[in-house]
């Protein structure tokens, strides 16, 4: 998994279609950036902290990579189990470092599909400074990934 130095921000403001009454009392719609945009920005910062907190727990061998992604993507055990097509108790086993060692590649591919990551992301966490661009491309049903590293022209 690629963890960038500066958390990902909303590159372009996203506008929502909102309804409200105009000065004549007529309810009309308009596209507007969320009035909670600054809170969304805070949310990104919070999530970036969360990644680093989970990474410490992962490297301290407290949690498994499956736990890392489940917690980060805020999926419940029940939801994850249904999506991976295993029982909730099986998922719970995979959340521990010891249980994770017993996951088959086939099941790991199913987890990878749910989390939209590659198998390599379960085993490799890359901390990337802002002056570097790292791009992974997936191959062979997420089994293999190709990594391209380039200088970030914007940060030169």
């Amino acid at each position, binding site marked *: 998994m690629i963890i960038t130095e500066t958390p990902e921000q909303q590159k372009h403001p996203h506008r929502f279609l909102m*309804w409200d*009454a105009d000065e004549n009392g*007529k309810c009309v*719609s308009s596209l507007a950036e969320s009035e*909670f945009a600054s809170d969304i920005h805070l949310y990104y910062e919070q999530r970036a902290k969360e990644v680093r907190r989970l990474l410490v727990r992962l490297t301290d061998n407290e949690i498994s990579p499956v736990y890392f992604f489940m917690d980060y993507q805020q999926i419940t055990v029940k939801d994850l189990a249904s*999506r991976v097509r295993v029982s909730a108790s099986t998922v719970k086993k995979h959340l521990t470092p010891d249980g994770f060692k017993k996951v088959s590649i086939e099941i790991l591919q199913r987890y990878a*599909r749910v989390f939209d990551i590659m198998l390599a992301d379960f085993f490799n966490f890359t901390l990337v400074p802002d002056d570097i661009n790292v791009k992974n491309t997936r191959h062979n049903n997420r089994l293999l990934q190709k990594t391209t590293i380039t200088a970030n022209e914007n940060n030169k």
Partner: protein
Amino acid sequence: MKTISNYTHDVGAHCETGSVRNLIRHAGLEVTEPMIFGIGSGPAFYYLFFAKGPSTFPLIGIRTPPGTILKNVSKLSGIDFFSRQYSNTDKALARAHELLESNVPVALSVDMFYMKYLPSFLHVHAPFHFIILVGVEGDRYTISDPYFEEIGYLHIDDLRAAWETHAPLAKDNSLFHVKNIPGEIDWKNAVIRGMKRTCKNMILPPVIRNLMFFVGIQGMRTYAKKIRQWPKDFSGVILREGILFNAVGFEDQGTGGGAFRLMYGAFLQEAAELLGSTALVEMADRIIEHGRNWRDISRMLIRLGKKLPTSDEEYNDWIRQNAGMLDDGLDEIAGLFEKAADVEDRFFRDLGNIAADLG
């Protein structure tokens, strides 16, 4: 390569109503999103205490379950939709390709998490997001998504992951499209029946109300009570994010603002004009005012949530010093939600009576 000709992409406040409207418009019938929302009996309230949402807070539903609006619109307007859930994505994709070849845009129910063209903060695992396929070129699909101002593009791998999730209650590999628009539609009848159904959904009969304490007006009251308990049930970052998510869910998650109540006001204004009813004009004003008040409550939740610390490590010290402030703030907000429940109670009873008088 196949791209639908003459398709006009338009944004919507909500993915289901926006997609249904775009399909109907493409089929040649002009209709507004609020009209689809109103006839589809969109407004609702569910406090889903048994289902966890983001930050492990219980899920709140403020509109009817996904797919219900489509069903209601089809039934009440007579617009014939083909709707089917396929056993696997290959079959669903094959059908979608046939439809695109026939110049028919096709709506799908997918997991929003994989919609790469949307900003990252909308990449959440919600397997009930409606989009319209309007083209395909090799492995790239052209998407009309009411939440996105431009046309979006999805790789086939992302489309497959989004369309077949195996998530609980998800309608995997399901699609729908307009089959036939009747020559004449009795919009007046559809509007009245849509209003009646909405009132019925919001105000349950007394006996059922006690059993279904999490639905409709009673659900709003249950939710208000639970707000006061949040600091006992949750703590740390989870509590902070849960408070913020509740507010953002009312406003920014495809509601059009004020938990869909403002869009319902637009529907009632349109209905008033269609039916020549001054009573409905007044009802529209009432629900618009209510929607605006709901937005104010959302803002209060945001202001309060932002006061909580952003790390679990700081929480214990913070709560020792601020427990009273947090309890008072949540108590005030809970009180406002109880008032909001009273407002909706009176509103939907009155609307039900007006709808009964109209037909």
